[in-house]
């Protein structure tokens, strides 16, 4: 966060940089198969306009926080604004997305006062107990990927499914976990959990399973290029970095290493393509009409209800353990939610209209839900974060592939793409256990 503040200060001090804040990108503009700019809603004025761009970088974060009712990246259920917008914008522009079925789930302290405090050793090392007080797991660090392991989250989920929930973290009487390395914000949070009286060393803390990270995303190569010229991406919005698993701390690399690379490559691309192509006016006009149609007074559907329906659908049909018929039923529900979006009611004010922002973003989120669902249905095996009861085993013969999603006219196409294997061999276990 401090790094972001510093970056913003530096950018603001450069006379040749114009920083536009409180702007919502509603769509990427394309011409001849290249991204050439974006349409934007200025939240402070409610004005709609188009920006032409020689190169565009997506840095819109993940999508799993808004898709599921519980998430580590929505503190208290309140959005961090990472609503999958970049995934949907890229897909609309024709870019490929990969491995969108790979959503990481983790155990989270439950309740309003706990959700934001997950990133903290006392809340993730366990031991995890069931409702009868039996230990479900107390060797979290023994898993490959330790507290980030899909095995842990799936094990806890199955214990709840067996009727032995809720699950608790119970550290009463245990020595405090290793406090090295000493991280400044952890020390501050230790004081906070004592003040709020939610210290797992003192109390049994109930946990829920929630979403944590989108391991798939917009397909990029090592130069942070998407499959569409002029469009680059970095951070959680990107795929091809994690595959079916991820380790703690990787998101930082995704953000910093690929952020720098995306910036460099976008600058080079802009130098090589010095003329902006001019924005296709009919695209911008169509987009402006689409955005304005949310403000029609006859609209009657409440966004809060649709959002709840979407999150419940994702949790019921595309959660940590999946199966075919259930997913097909879920896809029908997503379609029915999609059909209701044009009737979402939004108050007709221009300035900082939060409901308008949320309605525009919700449509993008539902598109992402659809891609996630179709990708999950397509992968007929269990691998890492993607667990199916009807295909319980990893199948390297058929499924050592990426799931590629691409919008072709009105149709969402899902197809496999072989993975590039360099140093590690499939089927060999490299971690502990």
């Amino acid at each position, binding site marked *: 966060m401090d790094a972001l503040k510093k970056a913003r200060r530096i950018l603001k001090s450069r006379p040749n940089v114009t920083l536009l804040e409180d702007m919502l990108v509603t769509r990427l503009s394309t011409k001849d198969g290249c991204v050439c700019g974006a349409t934007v809603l200025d939240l402070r004025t409610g004005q709609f306009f188009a920006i032409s761009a020689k190169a565009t970088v997506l840095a819109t974060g993940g999508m799993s926080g808004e898709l599921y009712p519980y998430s580590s990246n929505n503190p208290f*259920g309140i*959005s*961090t604004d990472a609503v999958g917008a970049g995934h949907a914008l890229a897909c609309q522009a024709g870019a490929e997305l990969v491995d969108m079925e790979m959503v990481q789930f983790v155990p989270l302290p439950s309740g309003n006062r706990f959700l*934001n405090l997950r990133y903290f050793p006392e809340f993730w090392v366990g031991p995890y107990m069931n409702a009868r007080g039996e230990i479900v797991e107390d060797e979290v660090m023994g898993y490959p990927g330790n507290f980030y392991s899909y095995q842990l989250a799936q094990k806890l989920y199955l214990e709840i499914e067996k009727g032995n929930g809720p699950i608790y973290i119970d550290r009463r009487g245990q020595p405090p976990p290793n406090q090295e390395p000493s991280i400044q914000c952890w020390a501050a949070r230790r004081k*906070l959990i004592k003040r709020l009286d939610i210290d797992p060393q003192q109390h049994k803390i109930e946990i829920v399973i929630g979403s944590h990270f989108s391991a798939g995303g917009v397909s990029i190569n090592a130069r942070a290029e998407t499959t569409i010229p002029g469009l680059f991406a970095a951070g959680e919005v990107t795929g091809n970095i994690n595959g079916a698993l991820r380790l703690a701390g990787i998101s930082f690399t995704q953000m910093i290493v690929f952020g720098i690379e995306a910036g460099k490559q976008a600058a080079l691309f802009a130098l090589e393509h010095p003329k902006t192509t001019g924005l296709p006016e009919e695209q911008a006009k169509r987009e402006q009409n689409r955005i304005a149609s949310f403000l029609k007074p006859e609209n009657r559907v409440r*966004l809060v209800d649709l959002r709840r329906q979407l999150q419940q659908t994702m949790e019921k049909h595309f959660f940590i353990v999946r199966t075919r018929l259930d997913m097909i039923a879920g896809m029908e529900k997503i379609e029915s939610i999609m059909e209701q979006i044009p009737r979402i009611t939004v108050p007709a004010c221009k300035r*900082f209209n939060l409901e308008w922002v949320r309605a525009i973003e919700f449509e993008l989120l539902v598109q992402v839900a659809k891609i996630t669902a179709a990708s999950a249905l397509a992968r007929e095996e269990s691998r890492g974060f993607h667990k199916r009861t009807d295909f319980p085993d990893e199948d390297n013969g058929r499924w050592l592939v990426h799931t590629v999603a691409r919008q072709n006219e009105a149709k969402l196409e899902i197809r496999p793409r072989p993975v590039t294997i360099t140093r590690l061999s499939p089927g060999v276990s490299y971690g502990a256990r």
Partner: protein
Amino acid sequence: MEPVRALVFRFDPERDEKPRYAQYDVAMGEETYVIVLLDRIQREMDPTLSFRSYCCGLQSCGSCRVRINKKRKFACLATVKPGDELVIDPLTFPEGHIKDLVVGTE
């Protein structure tokens, strides 16, 4: 359980002649944070309310800062419990004010 009574500063410079306070009685099941209260009001009771809903949850970004009972606070970590009454104002007014609880980022 008693509701939380919130008096929230409302002013859209394009539509209103002068600022006013809107009163919301919100049923909250348990002690929570002011940003959760504002989110509940906006999503379920009054979609015309504007506030900076982004939340880092770490008392770090400062996006959610407002004045609660005249004191500058982070809405993400200021708590509120059933039966409480509170007055919520924008961080500054009229300087930098945009709408309701939203002020500029400068």
